[in-house]
Structure formats: C-alpha cells, structure tokens
C-alpha cells in the first residue's frame, strides 16, 4: 500500500470575476474591520510588522501590502511525512488526499451499541483506518470519555501516532506547551527533537472562531507550531446563517479574512511555514440550530472555498462529517455527494471523510470501511477520461468490425481492465440469487465483517512495542501535568 495523489479541479462554481470580487471584499474586511486576536504576543507581532493594531479592543487590521508579502512566503508545495516514504503526502494545490475523522464523543460499535468513546476505541479505530487504502492523513477519531478532557491531546497523540503509518494530524488544547510536548513524543520515534523539526511526522490544527475572532489558545499554538516548523491547518469552522452570513458568498468572505489572518501570522513568525487553508464549516440547520456537514449548501461552500484557497496558491482542506446516525441510505448518499463534489472541486484534503456521523458527534467502525469504498469510487472518477490513440481504439474497432462480436478476448481489453477498472471491495454487483446464496448481507454487514477481519490482524512494522510504551507513558505524564496546571490556576 502506498499513497497516490490524483489531481482534481474539474468543478468550478466561481468565475474569475467572482474570485476577484471575493478577494476585494476580503481586503475590505481585513483592512477596515479587522480580526479580533485575544493573544497579546500576536498583536505585537502584527504591530511590529506594520499592521494597525488596536490594543484596547485587540483588533488587528491587515492591509493589502502586508497580506501579499505574507502570502509570498507561504509554500504551495511541501511534503507531509508518513512513517516511511510510501506514506509521504506530496502536497500541492492540485492533488487530492483524505484525512480521517476527528474528535467524535460517541462510538457506534460492531454490536450496534451507541455509547461514549473509550481510549481503547481510539487505538482500534486507528488500526482499522490505517489499513484502509484511501486514508492518507490520520486524525484522532474520538475523544475518549475515560480520560479527563483538559490536555487530552497528549493522550490522543499516544492513542494514534504509534498506531499509524500515516502523517498524524494533531491538535493542542492547552497552547504552546502542547506543541512542545508533542514534539518530544514524536522524537521517541524520530530520534531527536531536531529530527522532528526537520521532517515532522505530525501537524497541528488551529480552529478560528467566526465571525473574525482568534482565541488566545489558537494563536499560541499557531505561533509555537510555526516557530518549530510544524505544518499548520489554519481552520475556520463557520456555520452558514449562524456565525457567518447566510449566503455562501458572504461566508466565503468571512472564512477568507479569518483564515488568511492566521496564515499571515504564521508567515510573520516563520516565513515559509507550511500552512493549509482549512475549513470545517457547515450549514446551520434552521430548524434545530444544529450543524449540517452534509447539506448541499455545505458541499457548495466547500467546493467554492477550494477555488478561493487556490486563488492564493494555498493547499486547501475541506470536507466534514455527515448527519446520518447509522450506516444507512442517508449515510451513503450524504458521503457520496460530499466526497465526490470535493474531489472534483480539487479539495486537496478531504477532511473528516471516514466514519464521522451525527454532526461530528459519533464515529462508526462500519462507516469507516464504507467511506473507504465511496472514496475509491470517487478517486476513480478523478482519473477522468484519457483520450489518445490507444484509448480511441480505432485499430481495435477496425479489427472487430461491424459484426456480431465482442472485445473480451483481446489482449488490449485484458490489460486495460486490469490496469484501470476499479475493483469494488464491499460493493455487491451480483444478481439477487447469488447475493442471497452469499448470505443476503447488507453493505453494513459486509463492512462489519471487514472491520472484524482487519482488527484480528496485527501489523505495525513502523514502530517497536518499546517505543509505543515510551510514548504512552510520556503522554500520560504530560496529561497529568496539564491537569495539575489547570487545578493550580
């Protein structure tokens, strides 16, 4: 198994004029309204870079010149390192990759139970996801209920990083200390902190608040990650109609101002810091007030945001969870529409695209496997239609001619099928009688079998048991330290 980056970008909802209009509106917001930043050192960094800073109200105003300068140093190509080269993700603004689920509080287990997530689930999910072909970046899919919340990111690291071959998408809930401790955890495997800083096998995410606010902890994490050369997903989680204007265009402007302000900060701290323009935005359901990741409006927003991010030559993370409660028809249609539209739009990281259900609250083992299947089908479509002498097949058509015949016995057919046709893993294409003979299983049943099979095999060649133990013991100590610090305050 290795990672292959297919190119997207077939689907464009915005014209060049639309993109310019969004850019100019964003400049107006950034230079005239500004962003609220609660972290004083962030204000100072902006101030010393020539931005207008209102210390009294913690507002930073960014003009066009400063924005352009910062964007110039933000790379559009970089590598996110896996545990070995096969799992390196070569990021640019065209290739499409996926990121697993994150931070679910509940689990839908194989016995059909809906229950709070446990630390053991985190490890099991990670092992499962690591064996799925179309998963490229690993997230900690659950927040275990058997651990205290504060500083739990250290334990998420311990429950995920040692169990995956993929680059690990981390987070720090407590600020700069989390980033520094995670570097120490990664160093157990990578040999030294210096090696981690040179080729980090993990990244950090910072989540900005709409409208136009950067909380203290997030700015702190952003600055510390940039200082240490850890790539950052600068993410905004807007709710259309709730925390941002109801039209997609207005939300694009808010997201853009909010994310770009974060990217500017990272570039001011350490020019060249890899930043991923990221959203996990969703529609506010106007009957429940809840977050809908699978609404068609959400898909439109994510596809359009891919264009906005690419306008600045920045790689883009979009995609989010779905709303269905169980792996059913709703789950299938929601995930398929979301993944396919994002892949076609050229979303470089389709985020939260495995197992995330119930508005990001629940992780399902079976859905992880089903989502892998959906992703495989979507990626097949990204290959597009190759048109050349060989594929036009005129010679072959001439050979067969207009008569009762078929193409099955030709070498060309055999080679092409083996090389290019998608082989579904858990999709059933049998007639009813054959399907019945094989147990008349629903896709959910087949997925459950696959989960059991994967979890019964143990295969982690990239880390030793001693290293896993060392990381886990250190993470426990760091978590304890964070909790003690919280209690002392």
């Amino acid at each position: 198994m290795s990672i292959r980056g297919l190119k997207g970008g077939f689907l464009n909802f915005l014209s060049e004029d639309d993109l310019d209009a969004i850019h100019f509106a964003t400049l107006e917001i950034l230079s005239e309204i500004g962003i609220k930043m609660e972290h004083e050192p962030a204000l100072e960094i902006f101030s010393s870079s020539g931005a207008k800073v209102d210390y009294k109200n913690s507002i930073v105003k960014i003009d066009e010149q400063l924005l352009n300068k910062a964007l110039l140093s933000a790379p559009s190509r970089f590598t996110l390192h896996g545990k070995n080269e096969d799992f390196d993700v070569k990021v640019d603004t065209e290739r499409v990759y996926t990121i697993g689920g994150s931070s679910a509080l509940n689990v839908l287990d194989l016995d059909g139970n809906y229950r709070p997530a446990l630390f053991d689930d985190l490890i099991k999910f990670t092992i499962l996801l690591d064996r799925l072909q179309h998963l490229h970046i690993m997230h900690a899919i659950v927040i275990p209920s058997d651990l205290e919340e504060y500083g739990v990111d250290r334990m998420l690291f311990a429950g995920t990083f040692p169990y995956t071959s993929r680059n690990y998408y981390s987070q720090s809930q407590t600020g700069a200390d989390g980033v520094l401790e995670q570097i120490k955890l990664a160093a157990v495997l990578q040999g030294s902190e210096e090696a981690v800083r040179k080729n980090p096998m993990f990244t950090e995410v910072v989540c900005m608040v709409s409208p136009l606010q950067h909380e203290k902890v997030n700015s702190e994490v952003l600055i510390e990650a940039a200082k240490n050369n850890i790539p950052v997903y600068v993410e905004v989680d807007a709710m259309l109609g709730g925390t941002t204007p109801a039209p997609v265009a207005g939300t694009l402007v808010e997201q853009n101002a909010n994310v770009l302000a974060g990217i500017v900060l990272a570039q001011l701290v350490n020019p060249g810091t890899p930043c991923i323009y990221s959203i996990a935005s969703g529609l506010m359901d106007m009957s429940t007030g809840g977050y809908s990741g699978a609404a068609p409006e959400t898909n439109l927003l994510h596809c359009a945001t891919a264009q906005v991010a690419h306008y600045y030559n920045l790689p883009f993370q979009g995609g989010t969870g779905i709303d269905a409660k169980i792996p059913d028809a709703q789950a299938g249609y929601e995930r398929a529409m979301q993944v396919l539209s994002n892949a076609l739009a050229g979303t470089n990281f389709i985020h939260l695209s495995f197992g995330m259900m119930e508005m990001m609250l629940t992780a399902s083992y079976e859905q992880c496997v089903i989502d892998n299947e959906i992703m495989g089908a979507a990626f097949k479509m990204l290959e597009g239609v190759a048109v050349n002498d060989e594929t036009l097949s005129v010679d072959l058509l001439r050979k067969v001619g207009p008569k009762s015949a078929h193409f099955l016995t030709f070498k060309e057919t055999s080679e092409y099928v083996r090389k290019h046709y998608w082989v579904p893993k858990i999709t059933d294409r049998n007639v009813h009688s054959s399907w019945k003979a094989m147990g008349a299983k629903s896709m959910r049943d087949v997925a459950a079998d696959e989960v059991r099979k994967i979890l019964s095999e143990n295969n982690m060649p990239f880390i030793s048991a001693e290293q896993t133990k060392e990381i886990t013991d250190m993470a426990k100590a760091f978590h304890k330290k964070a909790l003690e610090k919280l209690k002392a305050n």
Partner: protein
Amino acid sequence: MASDDIYKQLYENVLNGDFEQTGELANKALENNIDPMDAINSYLVPAIELVGERFGKKEYFLPDLMRSANAMKNALEVFEKDIREKGVERKSSGKVVIGTVKGDIHEIGKSIVASLLTAKGFTVTDLGVDVESEVFINKIVEEGAEILAMSALLPITMPYQGKVIEDLKARGLRDKIKIMVGGSPVTQEHAERIGADGYADDAVEAVKLAERLMKS
C-alpha cells in the same frame, strides 16, 4: 394611536419579528392606559405561540423565531416593569439566567436556547459569553433565578461549568437553583460528573429540560 391599533401593531410585530419598535409600542400602550397584563396575555403570548407553531411546522425558521423572541422580550420588559411597580407578579414559566462560561466566546447555541425559552414564556436573563462564576452567581441572587443554564463549546472550558457549581455550593446556594448545561462537546456523563441537574443535546431539548426541571 388608538389602543386597538397599538394592540394590533404589537401582535403583528411579534408575529413578524419586527423587534425594533416593540419597546416603544409598549410604552405607548402604557401611555394609553392599556392593561399590560391584558396586552401580554391577549396579544404577545398568542403571537409568540403562533410563531412557535409555525416553527414546528417548518414554515418559520430559527431567524424568524429569534427575531420574534426579541420583539416579545422588548415589549415584555416594559410591561413587566410597570406590572412590578404596581406590586403585582406576573406568572412566568420560570426565571432563567443563561450564559457561556469564562474562556469561551461561542455565542450562538446559548442565544438560540435563550430565545426558545423566551418563546416558551420563561423570563430569561442572558449574560452573554465569557461569563465569570461571580457574575453568574450575583445575577442569580439578584433575579431570584430558578434555573442556571451554562454553555461551553470547548473541551477546555467545559470544566468551568463545574467550577461555577462548586462556587454555588460554597456560597450555600446550590440547593436553591436547578442547573442545566449544554454545548456541543458536553455530554450526559460530563453533566453528572460536575453535578448539574440536566443536560440537553440541542435547543429544543433544552426547553423541554427546563420545563421538566421547573416541575421537579
């Protein structure tokens, strides 16, 4: 403006969510010697109930509901002040103090719950976001609140809900008030762990919970 017109206007404004004028209209009504209790029970309440009904049928949506709740609230404040000055107490579904806890600036879920509670006849004092324990407690005492509702959207601010409960205990006030907690990462387990009286998944459930807590 004749009394009938004022009544009609108040009803229409609550129904349509035109909240800018309702406070002024309520003052005008009092100048015209309209009975505030009658204005509330015969016009404001039926209007907000109709809004709630249309919301339930998905004809109206959250923005409509919140605008109507604001319209209702602006008029109620004027009428209730007058009623209190006359030494009468209006029967409310319950007195609620609500806010998002310290360190957390997430506004919206809390505001939706506040609006829905207002629409259901609760008297709601919304303290906003980033609210200190001391501010919650002082307001509870001042208002004689029956329910404290606290929101937290971040795992790192959730423990502060527990701190407020501990502070209430320390002041000997815990038994005098029902406490409900909410916010996306908040769970039933968390609510139990910190000693809250209830937790709800979403705003509609939160109102049902508040109604249950008032009966318990």
